[in-house]
């Protein structure tokens, strides 16, 4: 049979879909693929050049010198340690938090109360880090903020030994707590949606079998949303070398730099502020390669262990 004859005729819906998908492809081509040309900078001596395009095309090749440079740089060591450690801690605390929150919200009977809680917890997500971070800085100011008096009242600090919450020793805790405040409500939306899609018959059957609410959550809800959890877990693992740039940049100061300098802020500073374009490109490439490796590895492990993966 002639293949032309069996080809389906395009409908206007198909064209609409193609255009919409095409826009995404164009977006990716422009903003994700085309800039990859800049990866060449990582292997060239293009630091401090004014003309970036000229640096990519004309600067001399320098092999892996930029990679060696950052591997020997003590600032990089600090940044990578901070990035990995903090992401590991956040994987343990911040990743399950929205899941737990979604499970708890799911158990709330009063619709009005449920909506109120969801609105309140979602709201911080819509405040930019610039404003949110500014509020945090103002509230934790040792001299004029309200946290020190509260901590004094609770016996956690004293007038004689005040605590500087903006110091290095509290930075990770500040990041984790502020991320939770800002992200738990919003992060739980996808899990709440996944839970609402679960078959209600299973809950009824479990009730008939005498399962309590905790047992239903553990044996029905959690396994039901496991595919969603897996996807987000794998994405979180692949983002092990990334952090919320805005959050870190806003909360960073000269006192907490030893704990607040992470790869994203370090790349930004060396690349855009100091014009060490090649050095920053090498760092960025290193970051991307490690992320891809982590994604593939975690996907592989997940598939082996649970039979689920994202590709």
């Amino acid at each position, binding site marked *: 049979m002639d293949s032309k004859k069996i080809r389906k005729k395009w409908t206007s819906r198909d064209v609409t879909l193609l255009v919409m998908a095409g826009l995404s492809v164009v977006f990716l*081509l422009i903003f994700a693929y085309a800039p990859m*040309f800049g990866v060449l900078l990582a292997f060239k001596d293009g630091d401090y050049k004014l003309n*970036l*395009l000229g640096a990519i095309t004309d600067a001399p090749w320098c092999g892996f010198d930029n990679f060696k440079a950052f591997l020997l740089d003590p600032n990089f060591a600090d940044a990578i340690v901070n990035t990995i450690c903090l992401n590991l801690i956040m994987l343990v605390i911040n990743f399950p938090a929205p899941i737990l929150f979604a499970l708890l919200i799911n158990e709330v009977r009063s619709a009005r109360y449920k909506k109120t809680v969801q609105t309140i917890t979602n709201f911080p997500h819509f405040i930019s880090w610039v404003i949110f971070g500014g509020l945090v800085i103002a509230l934790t100011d040792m001299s*004029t903020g309200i946290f020190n008096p509260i901590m004094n009242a609770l016996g956690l600090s004293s007038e004689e*030994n*005040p605590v500087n919450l903006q110091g290095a020793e509290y930075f990770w805790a500040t990041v984790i707590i502020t991320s939770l405040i800002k992200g738990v409500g919003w992060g739980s939306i996808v899990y709440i949606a996944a839970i609402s899609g679960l078959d209600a018959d299973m809950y009824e059957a479990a009730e008939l079998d005498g399962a309590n609410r905790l047992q239903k959550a553990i044996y029905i809800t959690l396994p039901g949303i496991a595919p969603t959890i897996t996807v987000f877990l794998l994405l979180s693992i692949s983002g092990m070398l990334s952090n919320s740039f805005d959050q870190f940049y806003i909360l960073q100061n*000269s*006192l907490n730099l030893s704990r607040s300098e992470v790869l994203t802020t370090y790349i930004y500073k060396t690349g855009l502020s100091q*014009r060490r374009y090649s050095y920053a490109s090498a760092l960025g490439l290193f970051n991307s390669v490690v992320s891809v490796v982590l994604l593939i590895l975690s996907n592989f492990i997940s598939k082996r262990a649970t039979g689920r993966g994202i590709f």
Partner: protein
Amino acid sequence: MKKRTLIFLLIAVMALSGALAGCGGGQQELVYPDYPQASTDTESWEQWEDYDPTHITIDWYVDYSSFNWAGAESSIVSDMIEEKTGIKINFMKPVTDDGTMLNTLIAGGKLPDVITVLANGAERVQLAEEGYIYPINELSKRWAPNFMGRIDAEISRYFNASDGQLYGIPSHFYTTKDNESYEAQGHELLSNGAIVARKDYLEAYIAYKKSQDASWTDVQATTPEGFVEMCKWVKSNYGLSNTNPTVCLAPFETTNTLTGNKAINWLMEYFNVMPEDAEGNYTYQYEDERFLEMMLFLNELYSENLIISNNFTTSTSQVGSYIQNGLPFVCVLSPQDYAGNFKEWTLKNPSAEYVPILLTNKDGEVPQLRSLAGNGYRFSMITANCKRPDRVIKLFDYLWSEEGQRLLYYGVEGVTYTYTEADETYPYGKMEWTQEVKDAFNNNTHGAYGMLNSFVMLTNPMFVNLTQEQGYPFNNYTSYVNYNLKAALSEYVYNHQILEFPLNTTDEQYGDMITLRSRLYQLWIEYIPKIVMAKDQAASEAMYREGLDYADKYGYKSLTNWMNEAYLKYKSDLGVQFGYPVNDASSGYKDLKITSIFGDASKYVSVPDDIVKQ
């Protein structure tokens, strides 16, 4: 199939080209448009309508986040600029001072018509040397033939690029001619930074000490030991808590890699940390033993909870808020940056106003504070992207002229000021505000006029000083408060301009050395809090040594040697042996004495009755 592949490839290539086009404009050939040349018969700006009477708008990027000219959009000043030159200026500025916006504009090939950058930044030289900027000489030759004659030879000498061309105009360049005129008027320049203290606490302490020991003098509180004792007494006597910034240093901003920390810079002057050795060589101040002494002093203040750790996390606005609420007993900063905050506090608590004080190193050496006089602060340049360089050079010519300077500071003659012709004492003439403006100052509505030096990019502050009878622009209550925060220390102020020597921009090491200098500043910005907050003096010194070791690894010695070559050459050109008065036997430094912690209190200027305190 082939067709589809072709379309896909075409899209990909277009996308790639588009993206790369946004990644860099490439080095540009300087093109001089074919507009008619200006004549020398009249001023260049008076000729702008001759061949093109259309008004244009230009973009002007000021690489300074705090830049704020209230009258930019519409004021008698901006209107007059447009009337005189046919140009309306659209100003742009960054959100932060970390250089990212400027670098992005450069890398993206999106430099606007005019840019203003730091005069001592590496970009100024690199942009000019790589063809991104029009040379002023060439533009003025064509379209503003009198302009170069207005630019003092010292400016050209200082800023000329390797090709002998001048690529921009500095603000705040204090010429020898102006300095001499100012001295001839009998005025002294103020210091740039200062240590200021709350007068009520200070007087209470002095009274207490005298009640304990009649022979005690307040000079004893100027030594590091006496200073610590005084701060401890104030803290204890007034119940200042450990969260109170009893001694408040200027903020430590992590992105400030061009100048280091201001509090440290000013303290180095009080502690006489030598910028030049006895033989006249340029030194690396961080390796001076006096610097270590100063750091140990700060460590002691921290150990006594006089400096609090919060000081290393505060921003300029937070420090301003502390001052406005009178929280610190002592501040080490540039008082002019907080003039509004000091004013607010003084308004509410006149008896507790902040006053300048003296502090010395442990040997009691008289401090030497650098004056406000400098060799340029901002540098304005016309970029190769400028659409109408023929018109913009006329704008520069106008703003730089005496007429333009009068406009920028005083507004419009007859409306906001009256003008008395120049004479020997007042080389730029003498100006006095009209009653309308005096009333506006008192009503706090003067901002609408758009003058008062807010247009900082092309201003000469000495023009303002030299046109005022008192040698200082006393306009409103804030200006009096600001002046009195430093005036009493003027005896200890020296002209620092020799130490602001031009670096050898033609040297192939220039770029590397400027980068190294920034890295070293950044290193100390990170180390200083650690040194100050070390658990004891031994740990503090160990931390200092560690920082110095890193500085050594970075190469501070090669930087110092490189800078010393430029320094010695500059001094040789000027025919001077020393740039630091302490080393110069003829400077009169040895005759200087400290007679009071307040300096020379007779220099205070009382606020006249017709100035409303608001």
